[in-house]
């Protein structure tokens, strides 16, 4: 059809047929409106301007930079800087408020918890896990069992100075002897102590071995773990009578702990993070569910002012 000298004309519209047909439906050569052409030219002009203003044309090792100097990295850096500037006063306020005063300011506390949530994901998850649930040897921070103490100030101190950092004078320090390895106790004595610990933690029934172990415990272990095995927070000695075990509560693991001792290490963070970040981390860890009351918080709770309501009209 298309190469015919005399094109066929559609009777209804007076328009030429294009020569394409699908099941009896034929295409007409209807002209586009002129203004459409002008909008098309306008987009071309816009595109030329755009490629001049913004990075566009590929060159050998990068694209043309564009006269506006815009880049996605630059835009990100700007946004980050703006965000930092936006939260700077908040960080300053958190840094300037001692941790025991933080609970008196619910909004600041909430901001600190959220900031801590973010910082935790960067600095802490490697050992404590993304949900802060820990694993064998790395404490679960969600529970209510604390080696060194679970109130805000104590948590902040632990994060600041770390645990058993050899190069830091203020670090939390204690040393459990390796009773078996260093031959302080015989193998049989260690077994007896393990039997005793299984009894005071409510896992086994009292046996003759456990009764022998009780005496050995009183002589060797009670100085740190207490006569009843309730532990000591001054020394980071765990409570051996509760349901929570850092390394495991079965007989074999307890025996290993007594034989070789355990000396978990946590880095100090005062040389890596600023005061505000450490305080926010402490607030976050405290809020995970096991946080213990400081005197200030007890007073607040007695007032009944912390009812847990956190209304948000935006949701």
């Amino acid at each position, binding site marked *: 059809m298309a190469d015919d000298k005399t*094109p066929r*004309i559609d009777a*209804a*519209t*007076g*328009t*030429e047929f294009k020569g394409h047909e699908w099941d009896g439906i034929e295409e007409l*050569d*209807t*002209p*586009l*409106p*002129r*203004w*459409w*052409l002008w909008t098309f030219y306008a987009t071309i002009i816009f595109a030329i301007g755009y490629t001049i203003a913004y990075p566009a044309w590929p060159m050998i090792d990068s694209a043309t930079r564009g006269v506006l100097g815009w880049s996605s990295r630059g835009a990100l850096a700007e946004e980050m800087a703006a965000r930092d500037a936006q939260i700077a006063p908040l960080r300053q306020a958190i840094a300037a408020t001692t941790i025991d005063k933080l609970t008196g300011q*619910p909004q600041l506390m909430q901001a600190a918890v959220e900031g801590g949530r973010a910082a935790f994901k960067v600095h802490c998850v490697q050992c404590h*896990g*993304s*949900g*802060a*649930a820990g694993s064998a040897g790395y404490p*679960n921070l*969600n*529970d*209510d*069992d604390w080696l060194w103490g679970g109130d805000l100030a104590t948590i902040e101190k632990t994060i600041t100075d770390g645990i058993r950092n050899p190069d830091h004078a203020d670090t939390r320090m204690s040393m459990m002897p390796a009773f078996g390895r260093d031959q302080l106790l015989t193998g049989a004595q260690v077994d007896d102590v393990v039997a005793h610990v299984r009894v005071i933690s409510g896992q086994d029934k009292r046996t003759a071995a456990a009764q022998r172990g009780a005496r050995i415990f009183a002589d060797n272990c009670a100085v740190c773990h207490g006569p009843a095995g309730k532990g000591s927070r001054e020394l980071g000695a765990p*409570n051996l009578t*509760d*349901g*929570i075990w850092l390394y495991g509560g079965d007989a074999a693991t307890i025996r290993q702990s007594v034989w070789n001792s355990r000396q978990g290490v946590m880095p100090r963070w005062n040389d890596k993070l600023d005061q505000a970040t450490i305080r926010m981390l402490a607030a976050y860890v405290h*809020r*995970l*569910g*096991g*946080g*213990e*009351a400081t005197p200030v*918080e007890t007073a607040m*709770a007695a007032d009944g002012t*912390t*009812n*847990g*309501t*956190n*209304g*948000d*009209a*935006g*949701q």
Partner: protein
Amino acid sequence: MLMPTGSGDLYEKRKGVYPKAVDGFYRRLKWAIMAVTLAIYWVTPWLRWDRGPYAPDQAVLVDLANRRFYMFAIEIWPHEFYYVAGLLMMAGIGLFLVTSAVGRAWCGYACPQTVWTDLFQHVERAIDGDRNAQIRLAAAPLSAGKIARRLMKWSIWLLIAFLTGGAWIFYFADAPTLQHAFWTGAAAPIAYGTTAVLTATTFVLGGFMREQVCIYMCPWPRIQTAMLDEKSLVVTYKDWRGEKRGSVKKAAAHPGDYGDCIDCNQCVAVCPTGIDIREGPQIGCITCALCIDACDKVMAQVGRPRGLIDYCTEDDAAAEKQGRAPRPVLKTLLRPRTIAYFAIWGGIGVAMLFALGARTRIDISAQQDRNPIFVRLSDGAIRNAYMVKIRNMETRPRPIEVHVEGLPGAMLWTDAMARDQAAASLATRVPADSVAKLRIFVAAPPAGAPRQDFSFAVRATDREGGGAREDARFERP
């Protein structure tokens, strides 16, 4: 003529359309509809509706920032968006209903493009004069007078366009406050941007693009074409009555040779899209019925019966052509197809009204912490944590009590409380029209199924009462 003749040009220049003023039944109907639609558009944001101290007092408000939609006594939250979806469905099916019954009535009377173009053309006639004067002015060389008229016309258009674009933003914020902020430069940039964009589009689409929008840009004419059938009322030139066209003089000289159409071209002159209805139904016809008014007037002048151009169905056209009587209009309008559309439309409406009447204004959702799933406490108890959201959709604060059902021995506390304050239920106060987010710890004895289903229940402890529940799961090692 809409479509070009076979000239072979790739692009077609817009041919000016200079519709002549006309008076008649349909013109007056169009005036009335224009007045009503424009009044609704401009007045609605200024209507007030008292909702008490905790909610805005604007009758119709789309509060995007706070994600609330207010319409008189109805307040819709984002999770209730299906009401808006229902309204959109009703609007769609309503259009089907109208189109199958009376053709492109939406296009001809109520479409904003039609209403504003009509308004702009009225302004044009006031400044430039009627059709012939407009044609002369368009052809005239540029002169001081022509420039003055153009500037005058465009200024008025721009003013209307600005009022149109400016009114839109009042639907999205408190109108009096926003108006004050707008003039003092304190409004949000988006308000100025929206006004500018809508002013520009109104000015260009109503002033210059006009019928080009209907013919080239709008998908609706194509869709409507598919919805019309042989029983839809469309504007029809009754060619069996009108042909052969000829002047009154010729018809008097040769009675019997000529039909009723005197070929006065008034139907073409008044057409706002510049078509000739006598060429039959076409995509350019928005069925505004102004040609009916024009033709009726001429028929009255020459003493012939009205309705040479008239609303007529395809079936009736065929019947009339063969000398049979057309179906009664009521029978045309009430046919299975329109009744089915109406039933669906009404069904959705009734269902929505019922749902609106029966919906609760307190709701709860609970999302369990997944990491860690559970925590063993030092006394051996197992603790799960949940992010519980309590929605108070009333516009006043309400006291709410939360407890769990189906989990024996469970104790509840929040992350802002110490565990020794845990109790079997928690009392809180949810602010007006907001969501309280509580991180709730639930501790239960370690003995029990590893996965135990239970539910959170909330209850309003004020006089009105009411409550809701949400299923949840308690996990143990």
